[in-house]
């Protein structure tokens, strides 16, 4: 074989293998999370849960109809600029670009709304993000799934009403909304103000500057206000600091209700005894006694392939939340394949259809081994939220105990607010509303 023949043969081989690579049955999902910095406990736990779920699906089922999941990690540090950079880096990854993105930051979600829409890549913000994006007619590629902040907030007020003996008993009560001074923290102010008018309670919003490790002034104000409830809308170090400050201010922890980003083990353990009795909302629960988690242990950890260095975190709130992220991602791809071709890699646009037609009912969750692990979920073109329920859990000093069943949010209040806010956004941006009756 002379040199020319060899070169041609090699080129053909490379071309063939390249072509084969392009045809590889893979589904790429960016893992744009954070493993360092002040919010690393949340980022690393959720990333671990999601990636482990993909590993389990690949190992147990060979992927979805033979299409295996791949991922690439990008460190966002919970920083908007870094989040956008990671998005740009991952959006064109072979074979079909990013399937969808979990930005894991309300700020980054806001930064990606227009980009994701233009690039036809779904931005999935499970339990965070821009609430009015639940109106899929205005935000076709944004999915604030499962339960939005506004829905959660109405469930919290409902919980307070239950504790008070009825919603009418909330009249004259005082509530302090202690929030992280960021896009995330401010998200629920409008709905709380609206509910205060409806139920006649008094709400005071107190901002805590980033990162939240100094709160003496805020708790001094809380002491003066003497509220019946404090809503803790924290993130990272703000949460244990709030609980410790509450203890120092003599405020009962049983009257503090945290958002789900304030309700993980990492939020209460650093506070020690000060966290006992504290209540937090959740759209997923902790524990490894679920079939889905056991499958991860069997197919991933038993083979020494787990993502978490500290295996004791498997089954924690953040880890399980990451598994929920994994479930909705995998099932959206599966749904998309049903329409666009089983065994094919799906594009972002196709996965968007999969998300809008996702129906994770009780029976389906049972098949996934996730009964009680997460709530049933049904999305549509109109409704990108899909769930809207909340469970409440209480910290006993060593573990979270679920103290309620799923509590439905007040959609009669939330949905009109979502549509009004989305319509305002559409007007500002000159967006024509999609006609959902034409979406099949």
């Amino acid at each position: 074989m002379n040199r020319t023949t060899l070169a041609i043969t090699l080129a053909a081989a490379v071309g063939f293998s390249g072509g084969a690579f392009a045809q590889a049955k893979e589904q790429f999902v960016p893992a744009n999370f954070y493993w360092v910095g002040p919010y690393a406990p949340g980022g690393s736990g959720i990333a671990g849960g999601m990636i482990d779920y993909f590993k389990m699906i690949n190992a147990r089922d060979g992927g979805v109809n033979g299409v295996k999941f791949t991922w690439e990690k990008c460190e966002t540090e919970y920083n908007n600029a870094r989040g956008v950079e990671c998005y740009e880096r991952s959006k064109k990854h072979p074979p079909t670009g990013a399937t969808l993105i979990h930005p894991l930051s309300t700020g980054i979600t806001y930064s990606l709304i227009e980009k994701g829409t233009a690039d036809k890549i779904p931005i999935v913000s499970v339990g965070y993000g821009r609430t009015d994006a639940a109106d899929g007619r205005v935000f076709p590629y944004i999915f604030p799934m499962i339960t939005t902040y506004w829905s959660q907030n109405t469930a919290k007020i409902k919980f307070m009403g239950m504790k008070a003996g009825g919603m009418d008993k909330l009249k004259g009560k005082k509530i302090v909304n202690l929030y992280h001074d960021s896009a995330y923290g401010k998200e629920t102010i409008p709905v709380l103000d609206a509910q205060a008018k409806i139920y006649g309670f008094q709400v005071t919003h107190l901002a805590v500057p980033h990162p939240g490790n100094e709160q003496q002034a805020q708790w001094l104000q809380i002491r003066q206000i003497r509220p019946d409830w404090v809503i803790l809308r924290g993130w990272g170090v703000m949460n244990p600091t709030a609980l410790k400050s509450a203890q120092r201010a003599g405020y009962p922890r049983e009257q503090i209700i945290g958002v789900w980003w304030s309700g993980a083990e990492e939020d209460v353990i650093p506070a020690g005894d000060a966290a006992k009795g504290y209540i937090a909302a959740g759209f997923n629960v902790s524990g490894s006694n679920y079939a889905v988690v056991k499958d991860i242990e069997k197919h991933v950890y038993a083979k020494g392939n787990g993502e978490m260095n500290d295996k004791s975190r498997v089954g924690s709130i953040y880890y399980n939340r990451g598994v929920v992220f994994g479930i909705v991602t995998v099932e959206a791809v599966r749904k998309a394949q049903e329409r666009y071709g089983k065994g094919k890699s799906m594009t972002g646009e196709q996965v968007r259809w999969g998300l809008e037609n996702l129906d994770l009912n009780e029976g389906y969750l049972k098949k996934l081994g996730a009964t009680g692990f997460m709530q049933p979920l049904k999305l549509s073109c109109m409704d990108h939220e899909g769930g809207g329920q909340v469970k409440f859990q209480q910290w006993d000093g060593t573990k979270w105990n679920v103290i309620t069943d799923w509590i439905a949010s007040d959609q009669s209040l939330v949905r009109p607010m979502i549509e009004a806010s989305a319509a305002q956004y559409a007007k500002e941006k000159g967006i024509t509303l999609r006609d959902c009756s034409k979406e099949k």
Partner: protein
Amino acid sequence: MYSLVALGFVLIYKASGVFNFAQGAMVFFAALTFVSLVERGVNFWLALLITLAVMVVLGMAIEKVVLRPLVNQPPITLFMATIGLTFVLEGLSQLAWGSQPHGLDLGIKDVPMEWLAQSTGMFISQFDLFASGIAAVLVASLALFFQYTRIGRALRAVADDHQAAQAVGIPLKNIWAIVWAVAGFVALVAGLMWGARNGVQYALTFIALKALPVLILGGFDSVLGAIVGGLIIGASEKLAEVYIGPMVGGGIESWFAYVIALLFLLVRPQGLFGEKIIDRV
């Protein structure tokens, strides 16, 4: 509490004329090392001793690897080196011990003393008193050390002029190694106090940023200034948050301290207790 962190800055500045940006990372590194050892079953006092040894070795290593090659360089060069050091220490801490937050119980109650709360309405805990006591002891010890010991005087000479100090026979390498080791000890104390209050986690590094207005107010080279500055900044930012905050939407304490420092700079650039620098032109 702020003063405990500010003390570490003053120490380095007094001895080398460098603003050590890495002091916050040192606080984090010390606290994380200590709590990780305790969680692995090491006895409290032994863990304290090991962490102290680690901080002393770290201080000496910083002198040898980072500072020694930069002797006689302008202060801004040394300052930039400490910024780089910050990132190295933050990364190293998380690489070695992970990024999970930890609780730290020093066995001192952090709940308001009931009798005091009832009689005066003031919510002060045993922990507050303990932290104040620690700060007072550290200040007194450092003040005596700088004023009356041979090494202390040598440190001040080095801060004034590296070359002149070397010329009169002061061993610069040893002096810097000592002072960085002592700064490591101060970082450990500050880390334990802040860690016990808010948990040991990455956010400890941000506390260092609060020390900057404290130092501007009190004077970069004054141990007493660190204490007085800490008290003034701590009290004024809290009062501002309570009384001015509601008028402007709240959340102002993070930057209000810098406003005070800025105003103070205009009136008294050297700080309350800082040494006034007069240059011959």
